[in-house]
C-alpha cells in the first residue's frame, strides 16, 4: 500500500504533470497521423528523455502509448485511414457514421470507450502485476530462459507474415544481441572495431527499423493531396442514454483487451479485432456492424486501449514485453538504468507504481484532451506527408547522435533504416527482431547461469515441470503450423498421367 501511495505521490511534482501532458499531446499527434504509430513515437521520444528523471520519462512514454492508441481512431473515423492497425475495426463503423454526418458522435464514443478501457485495465494491472511478480521471484535461471524463449516463439507465431519469416526475424534479433563484449567473460564477440564492444546501440536500431523505414515508405507514397477537414464542434459530447447502452460492451471489451494484451505478441491489434468480432457475434443487431454501429466502435476502442495496460503486466512483472511497443518501453527502462522484471518491484517499487498511477491519472486527462480537441486533431490529419517525413528524418539524425554523442549510432541507424524498409517490403516482421534484440541478453545470461548452477548438467532444462511445459510450447509453436502446412501440401490433388 505504501508503494501504491508512493506511486500516486509522484504526481506531487509539476515536472511529472508536464511530462504527462506532453506525452498525451504528442501521442494524439502520433496516433492521428497514419504510418507513425506508438512504436515509432516512443522510439522518437526516447532521445528527448535522456536527461529526465526516470519517473517523468516513463510517465511521458506511457502517456504517449496510451494516447497514440486512441489517436489512431481519429483518422480512422474522419478519413477512413486508421492511424494505427488496431484502429482498423473502428474505421468500419466510424467512417460510416462520418458519411452520415455523425463524425462527432463517433469520436465521442471512441474517446469515452478508450477512457473506460484504460481505467478498467489499469485496475486489473494493479491487481495482477504484483502477484505475477511474486511468482516470478521464485523462478530460477532455467525458468527465465525458457520463459523468454517461449515469449519469442509466441511472437513469431502470431506476428504478420509467414512463420518461417518470424523464425528468421527472431534469430536475426538474437544474433544482433550477441554483438559486443560477452557480459560474463568480457570476450569481444562479432566486434570488428571498439565501437561494437558495447553492443549495438538500441535506440538507433529502433529509430532505423521503425522511423526511418517509415520515412522511406512516405517518400514512396509521394506528396499527400489536400484533404478536406471535418468541421467539428469545439467540445464533443455523448447522451447519457447512449453511454448506458454501451456500458456492457465497453466493460466486456476492456476485459478481453486486457487478457489478450498480456499474451506476448498478441498486442492491441489482435485485441481490437477479437473484441469487435465477439461483439458482432453476440449483438442483437449484427447487421449494423460495418454500417455505423456505436457498439462496434466501443468494442474496438475499449479493447485496444485496455491491451496497452495488458502488455505492461508481463513487462513489469516478468521483464518480458507483451508487444513490439512494450519491447521499446523495456529499452527505455534500460536506458534509464532500470531492469524490468520482478526485482523492479523490490528495488525500485516507485517505478512500476508510478507507471500504474500514470494510467489512472492520465486517462481522465486523455478524455478531456480528446473531447475538447476534436477540431484540432482533425486539422492534424491534414498535415502534408512530405513535411512529416522530413521532420521524422531530422529528429532521427539528431536523436541517434544524441544517444552517445558520437556518429557510430547514426551510421547504425541509417543501415537499419534501409534494412527495415527491405524487411517490411518483403513482409519480414520487425517486432520479433526488436523483441529478440532486447530479450537476447536475458535469454543467454539465464541460459548459461542455469548450466553453471547445475554444474554443466543439461538435464536442468528437462527436469523442471514449468521449463518443460514452456519448451514443449516453443516446439509446438512451430511444429503445429509446420504440420498443417505439410498436410495441406500432401492434400493437393496429384496429376494423373494416363498412358
Amino acid at each position, binding site marked *: 500500500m505504501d508503494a501504491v501511495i508512493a506511486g500516486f505521490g509522484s504526481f506531487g511534482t509539476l515536472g511529472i504533470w508536464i511530462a504527462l501532458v506532453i506525452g498525451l499531446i504528442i501521442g494524439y499527434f502520433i496516433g492521428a497521423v*497514419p504510418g507513425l504509430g506508438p512504436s515509432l513515437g516512443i522510439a522518437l521520444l526516447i532521445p*528527448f528523455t*535522456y*536527461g529526465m528523471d526516470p519517473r517523468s520519462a516513463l510517465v511521458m512514454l506511457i502517456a504517449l502509448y496510451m494516447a497514440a492508441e486512441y489517436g489512431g481512431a481519429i483518422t480512422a473515423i474522419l478519413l477512413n485511414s486508421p492511424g494505427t492497425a488496431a484502429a482498423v475495426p473502428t474505421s468500419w463503423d466510424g467512417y460510416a457514421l462520418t458519411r452520415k454526418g455523425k463524425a462527432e458522435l463517433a469520436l465521442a464514443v471512441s474517446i469515452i470507450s478508450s477512457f473506460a478501457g484504460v481505467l478498467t485495465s489499469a485496475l486489473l494491472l494493479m491487481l495482477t502485476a504484483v502477484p505475477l511478480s511474486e511468482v516470478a521471484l521464485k523462478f530460477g535461471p532455467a525458468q527465465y530462459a525458457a520463459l523468454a524463449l517461449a515469449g519469442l516463439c509466441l511472437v513469431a507465431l502470431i506476428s504478420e507474415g509467414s512463420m*518461417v*519469416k518470424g*523464425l*528468421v526475424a*527472431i*534469430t*536475426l534479433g538474437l*544474433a544482433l544481441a*550477441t554483438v559486443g563484449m560477452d557480459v*560474463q567473460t568480457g*570476450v569481444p*564477440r*562479432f566486434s570488428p572495431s571498439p565501437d561494437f564492444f558495447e553492443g549495438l546501440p538500441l535506440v538507433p536500431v529502433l529509430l532505423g527499423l521503425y522511423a*526511418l523505414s517509415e*520515412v*522511406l515508405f*512516405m*517518400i*514512396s*507514397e*509521394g*506528396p*499527400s*493531396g489536400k484533404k478536406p477537414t471535418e468541421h467539428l464542434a469545439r467540445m464533443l459530447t455523448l447522451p447519457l442514454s447512449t453511454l448506458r447502452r454501451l456500458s456492457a460492451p465497453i466493460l466486456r471489451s476492456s476485459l478481453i483487451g486486457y487478457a489478450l494484451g498480456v499474451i506476448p505478441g498478441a498486442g492491441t491489434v489482435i485485441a481490437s479485432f477479437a473484441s469487435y468480432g465477439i461483439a458482432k457475434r453476440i449483438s442483437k443487431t449484427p447487421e449494423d456492424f460495418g454500417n455505423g454501429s456505436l457498439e462496434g466502435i466501443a468494442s474496438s476502442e475499449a479493447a485496444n486501449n485496455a491491451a496497452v495496460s495488458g502488455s505492461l503486466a508481463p513487462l513489469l512483472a516478468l521483464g518480458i514485453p507483451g508487444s513490439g511497443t512494450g519491447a521499446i518501453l523495456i529499452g527505455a527502462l534500460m536506458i534509464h538504468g532500470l531492469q524490468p522484471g520482478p526485482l523492479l518491484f523490490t528495488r525500485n517499487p516507485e517505478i512500476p507504481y508510478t507507471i500504474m498511477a500514470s494510467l489512472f491519472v492520465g486517462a481522465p486527462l486523455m478524455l478531456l484532451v480528446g473531447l475538447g480537441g476534436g477540431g484540432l486533431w482533425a486539422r492534424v490529419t491534414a498535415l*502534408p*506527408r*512530405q*513535411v512529416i*517525413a*522530413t*521532420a521524422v*528524418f*531530422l*529528429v532521427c*539524425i*539528431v*536523436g541517434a*547522435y*544524441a544517444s552517445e*554523442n558520437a*556518429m557510430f549510432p*547514426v*551510421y547504425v*541507424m*541509417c543501415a537499419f533504416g*534501409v534494412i527495415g*524498409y527491405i524487411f517490411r*517490403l*518483403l513482409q*519480414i516482421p520487425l517486432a520479433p527482431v526488436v523483441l529478440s534484440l532486447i530479450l537476447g541478453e536475458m*535469454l543467454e545470461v539465464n*541460459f*548459461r547461469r542455469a*548450466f*553453471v548452477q547445475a554444474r*554443466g548438467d543439461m538435464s536442468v532444462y528437462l527436469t523442471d515441470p514449468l521449463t518443460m511445459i514452456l519448451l514443449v510450447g516453443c516446439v509446438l509453436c512451430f511444429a503445429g503450423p509446420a504440420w498443417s502446412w505439410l498436410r495441406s501440401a500432401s492434400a493437393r490433388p496429384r496429376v494423373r498421367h494416363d498412358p
Partner: protein
Amino acid sequence: MSDKALKPEAHAPSGEPRNGITLEVRTRLPDLVVAAAILAAFVAYTIAALRIPAPYTNDDVGPGAFPLMVAVFGVLGSLGLAVGPLLGMIRGTPQDTVIINRYPQVFAAALLLMLGAVLFDRIGAVASLVPLGLAMLWLGGERRVMQLIIVPVALAAGVYAAFAYGLDVPLP
C-alpha cells in the same frame, strides 16, 4: 530484376492516385536474394562464433555456445526462407507482387540517409540539417518554393533548439 515493369498511375494504399514511376516487382527473386543474403550472413556469423574462445571452466558453456545455437537456427531459417520461392519456381505457382512507387526517389532518400550521416559530423548540425531537410522535402514531392525554404529552416531550427538548448545535448 527480370520481372520488373514500369506502370504509372496505379493507386496508392491510401486511395490517392499515385504519381511518379512505379516499380512492380514479383517477390520470388527478391525473396531468394534476401534469403541468400541472410544465409551468407549466418554462415559468416557461424564461422566467427567458432572462433570465440572455449569456456574457462567445464561448468560454463562459454561465450560461443549461444551464438552457435542461434547460428544453427539462423541457417535453418534462411534455408526455409528460400524453400518457398524455390518450390514456387518448380511448380510455377503465381507470385506475390510488391509495388514500389517513386522508386528513384526512394533510392535517393536511402542515399540521402548515408549522406546525412557523413555530413552531420563533418560540416556541423546547423549547416547540415537545413540542406538535408530541404533535400528530403523535395524527394517527398514538395515543389512549392516558399515551403521548400521555410519548412526545412523551421524544422531544423526546432529540432536543433530542442536538443541543444532544451536537452543540453552538445551537437557538432
